[in-house]
């Protein structure tokens, strides 16, 4: 199958899942009534559910899925480690801790504007801090398995401090934080989407300028340097983009696991290339497809209630990671 056909297939799949995500939900709305919502001929309740609830949720799924997949791809190239990802390396956990510090410790900071901006900012700064820490350790330790283990330890430490903060906080603040920490696509409103989509799109455009340097980085730092790549500038840009992508997603949707780890591998297998142009575009489309699919599954009537999207991504992601480890047990050892 040619690249063009593969892209076409992914675009088609994204479109179908997008429509399916809008059409499905716990309340049954026939297709004609859903279409009527877009032509101002629907009843108020249908319009609220479709345009105010399902549409922002589906767009959030596209943004979050593609952002996390691209973030995972950047980390795997950056750390030259197939198991690198924001969740595994503890970046999500440090990001959550940072939000916990903001939400549970901000006291009287109740200004709506500051609160809206504060959480994405705290989350991105936390993600950046987590990445800097991992980068610093990666300089000292070359062993990939050790870096992964250290990333997991950082995740545990951040999780433990988060628990301490939760214990010490008041019930009201704790409730808000627990809700955020549950990871949900449905909490994203159209106002949030404007900021969320803007940041994600800007990061993707920036990534397009990094295709050549990232391809060079696959050859190793020395080879990339000989090809005229400024390694330190590249690493800093990749760091900022990764932190922004995973940070802003964590801020609006909560900590969503496994997308960043599993999707880049699926894309590599599907496109059968490590070229970063195909990797980037493939991860954008595949990430969107994956999270849309997870959202559709989380709303299946058999579950009676809406499952947290984090649970569904883990149900799919965890078996994949197990398979990956078993398949590559010799190379990972």
């Amino acid at each position: 199958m040619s690249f063009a056909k593969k892209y076409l297939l992914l675009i088609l799949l994204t479109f179908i899942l997008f429509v399916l995500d809008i059409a499905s939900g716990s309340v049954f709305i026939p297709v004609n009534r859903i279409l009527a919502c877009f032509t101002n001929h629907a009843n108020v309740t249908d319009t609220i559910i479709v345009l105010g609830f399902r549409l922002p949720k589906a767009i959030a799924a596209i943004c979050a899925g593609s952002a996390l997949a691209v973030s995972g791809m950047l980390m795997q190239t950056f750390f030259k480690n197939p198991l690198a990802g924001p969740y595994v390396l503890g970046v999500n956990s440090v990001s959550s801790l940072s939000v916990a510090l903001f939400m549970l410790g901000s006291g009287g900071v109740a200004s709506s504007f500051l609160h809206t901006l504060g959480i994405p900012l705290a989350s991105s700064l936390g993600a950046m801090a987590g990445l800097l820490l991992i980068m610093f350790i990666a300089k000292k330790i070359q062993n990939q398995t050790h870096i992964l283990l250290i990333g997991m330890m950082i995740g545990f430490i951040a999780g433990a401090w988060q628990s301490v903060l939760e214990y010490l906080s008041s019930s009201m603040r704790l409730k808000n934080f627990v809700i955020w920490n549950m990871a949900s696509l449905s909490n994203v409103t159209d106002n949030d989407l404007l900021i969320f989509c803007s940041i994600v799109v800007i990061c993707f455009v920036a990534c397009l300028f990094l295709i050549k340097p990232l391809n060079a980085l696959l050859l190793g730092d020395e080879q990339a340097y000989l090809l005229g790549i400024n390694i330190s500038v590249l690493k800093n840009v990749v760091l900022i983009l990764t932190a922004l992508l995973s940070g802003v997603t964590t801020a609006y949707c909560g900590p969503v696991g496994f997308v960043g780890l599993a999707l880049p591998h699926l894309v590599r297998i599907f496109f059968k290339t490590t070229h970063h142009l195909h990797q980037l575009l493939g991860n954008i489309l595949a990430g969107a497809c994956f999270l849309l699919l997870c959202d559709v599954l989380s709303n299946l009537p058999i579950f009676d209630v809406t499952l947290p999207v984090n649970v569904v991504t883990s149900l799919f992601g965890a078996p994949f990671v197990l398979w990956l480890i078993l398949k590559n047990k010799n190379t990972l050892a």
Partner: protein
Amino acid sequence: MKKNISVFSIVLLFLISCNNEQQKKEATVSLTHIKQNNYATYFKIYKEADFAALVTYVNKDKTDSLVYVLYSNEKPKLNSNAYYIKTPLKSAAVLDAFFIGALNNLNCLNYITAIDNSDYVYNPIIKKKCAENKVQQLSKSGVLNIEQTLVCKPEALFINPSGDTKKDFDPRLLKATITPVVCADYYENNPLGRVEWVKALALFFNVEQRADSLFSSIEKKYVQLQSITDTCTNKPTVFTELKTGDVWFVPGGKSTTAQLLKNAGADFIFKDNDKTASVSLNMEQVISKATNADYWINLHYCNIKTDIIKQDKRYAVFNAYKKGNLYNNNALIDETGGNAYWESGLNHPDELLADLIKIFHPALLSQHTLKYYKQLK
């Protein structure tokens, strides 16, 4: 209505739980005088000449129960696995706000020596005692601190069932003669049934008469108020709560909240189910049914109208929000989050009912001033 019926002779089988397994045998104890409850279904009281027995059901299906034998003079020789407690208690730990309200109504607040967490307590006397370290806090982190409990050494520990009786009866507590008293008051689906638990609690402090007259007075007022709305033909529609994460927990159709709303002459949108516990819905399901509802009550921690849309601006689509018909049960709340609704409120369903009638049918109780509820503006 108070009934003391001594008609039935009910024989309870108590299994002997001797330390020596080989000596296990069954003993029967005849308890003849049952004190009939008017509404409560999760406890039974048996009054004998020299002791009382309290049977509490600790699970929803009433398949698991505990027996407490309460005596004031000589310990009755029943040779059973009941828990024996000498009354009146001089010290009690209460790990739920409802018990504080009940003991306050019984004038037994002085016997409270420990609570769970003072942050969630509204009663100023208990709060002050906590600050002075005269009342201990045993569950600040949400989990009972066994060491602190052993040091505090209350004679009884009033708790709600956790669902695991073994966990509720920690052997270290029993060894220190601290008896957990498991009260499933929140399983009751009638507000008067829940407040009737005051009769069970009164047994531990020998204030049964006070409990009986208190309950009768509350019941009388409640029934009177209920009769006011009986003839109402206009029943405004109402829904409750906010979503938590993706889940919107609404009270079951047979819950105390649903009962209160019905008695207050309101039409609870989610009444059509036979659940006594909460029902999990999502926002789509609530929007599809409650968009045009007239009233929206029990709005968690919200103090003003804008607090609601700060959580999710889509809450503004509800008609009740647009009309400003928003009422929260946090009119009496202190700076740490202690809410009188969960203490004195649940122990005075008559006052809660009066508040709700005032909200839904203001003309019927024009002189009444809201106590536990406030309108969010």
